Each structure stands twice: as structure tokens, then as C-alpha cells.
């Protein structure tokens, strides 16, 4: 019988001390659903980079995860400034990160590229001043 699970985690922008907390909890939860190995790893890494981006660039956001027998689909939505030039943002090395982000070990312009690399399907939808939606699909 096919089962479906869906859950969400809120992420607060600018909350650098908590960066990664949602990702750790989501990983634990997915593990509990029997997801392991490379699939678990790629999912956790993609979510981590996304969480750091919300904290770095947006005021607040939400990570929504849907697990089916076939795949894991992750929607990451934020109400930040949006990404004006998505192609440029996707480029390795492009970054507008400030010192605080760099001190944490991020801000080298690798995040979105890493997310794409972990995904079987990846899409960014964004509108200036409205926010950003990342749609990540990982096959099980």
C-alpha cells in the first residue's frame, strides 16, 4: 500500500545561531521514515544549504517536505528580497554574502549549485521583493 507523509518546518531569517537546526530535525524525521544512504544524504545536504540561504538572505521561510514511495519533494519558500538574476545566482562563486555568513563557513557562492547537484529535479521561482521558492525533487 502506498503511503504519503508531509511535514513543514519554519525557518527564521537572520537567526545565525540556529542555522542547521531545522535540517538536523528533518534528517532525523526522514530517517525514521526509513530513508537511508545516498538519498537521505542528498536530501539533508540540499535542505541544509536552503536553510542557510533563508537565514542569510530572507526574513523568514518555510521548508515543506512530502515523502511518497517514489520520491521526496521539498518546497522551500521564503518572503525575502527574491533573486533578480537566477542564472547569475546559480553560478559557482557568485555571492552577495556578508561577513557574518562567511564567518560561519558559508558565502562562497556554492550553495545553489550544491542543491542542484543533490537534486534529481530542481527549479527556482523568484520575484523581486516577494520572495523565493525552491522546488527540489529527489527520487528514492
Amino acid at each position, binding site marked *: 500500500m502506498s503511503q504519503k507523509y508531509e511535514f513543514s518546518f519554519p525557518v527564521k531569517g537572520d537567526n545565525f*545561531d540556529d*542555522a*542547521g*537546526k531545522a*535540517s*538536523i530535525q528533518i*534528517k532525523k524525521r526522514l530517517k525514521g521514515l526509513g530513508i537511508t544512504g545516498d538519498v537521505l*544524504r542528498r536530501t*539533508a*545536504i540540499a535542505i*541544509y*544549504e536552503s536553510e542557510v540561504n533563508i537565514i542569510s538572505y530572507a526574513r523568514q521561510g518555510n521548508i515543506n517536505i512530502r515523502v511518497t514511495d517514489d520520491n521526496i519533494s521539498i518546497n522551500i519558500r521564503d518572503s525575502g528580497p527574491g533573486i533578480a538574476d537566477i542564472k547569475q545566482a546559480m553560478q*559557482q562563486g557568485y555571492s552577495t554574502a556578508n561577513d557574518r555568513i562567511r*564567518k*560561519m*563557513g*558559508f558565502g*562562497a557562492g*556554492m*550553495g545553489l*549549485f*550544491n542543491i542542484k*547537484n543533490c537534486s534529481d529535479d530542481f527549479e527556482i521561482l523568484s520575484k523581486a521583493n516577494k520572495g523565493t521558492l525552491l522546488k527540489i525533487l529527489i527520487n528514492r
Partner: protein
Amino acid sequence: MTLHEIRELLDARVLAGKNHLDVEVKTAFSADLMSDVLAFAKPGSIMITGLTNPQVVRIASIVDNSAILIVRGKIPPDETIALAEKLEIPVLSTKYILFETSGRLYANGIVGCIRKIEGPGSVVPL
């Protein structure tokens, strides 16, 4: 090498995970850039870094690092150590610099997680 042996080789202090040092380690990844750790570190590898914030522990948990080895004699803040204890990830601190630390481990048979990057997204494995 086991974490015990690594501790001895690098004259390191054990700051967390005292009871988890029997683990055998074959690979390591040295970085101060956490995006690179997320991209390239292999499960079971040891993370060698100069960063000390709690992020480092969360990243190690995400990529399943067997331990965190902090270089240049830095001592992480209490929250980092507390989180490492909670997530059961050993943290060691050595006075050797990143280059010396990596070189000494390599000379003792520890290898990197990947060999090199040939081009965008093109990883050359070991």
C-alpha cells in the same frame, strides 16, 4: 587509524565524545568552507577545520563525519562542545596547523574524500 591513534599522533585534546574513540577512520576532509564539506565529505570521514561554531557540529551530523578535528589549538565555545556531546560526535583539538595536521594524517594512510575537481560539477574520485 582509530581516533585514539589520531589523538596520539597529533597530541590532540579530546573535547567531546571521549567514549567514541574506537572508530576506525580511513578518509578526511580539510576545509574552512562548510559548503565544500557538504559537497564533498564522505560518510565516516573526519572533518579537519579551523572553525569552531556550532554549525560545524550540525554539518558533521548531516554528512555523517566520524569526528571533528580542530586545528591551530583553537578551543570551541561551550555550546559547540555541548551540541557535539548531544549528537555524539567526537571533537578533538590539535595545536598543529591545518597543513601539518593533514600531512601527518596522510603520511599515516588517511586519504582525502575525493581526489580533485576537473571542472564545474566534475569530481574525480579517489
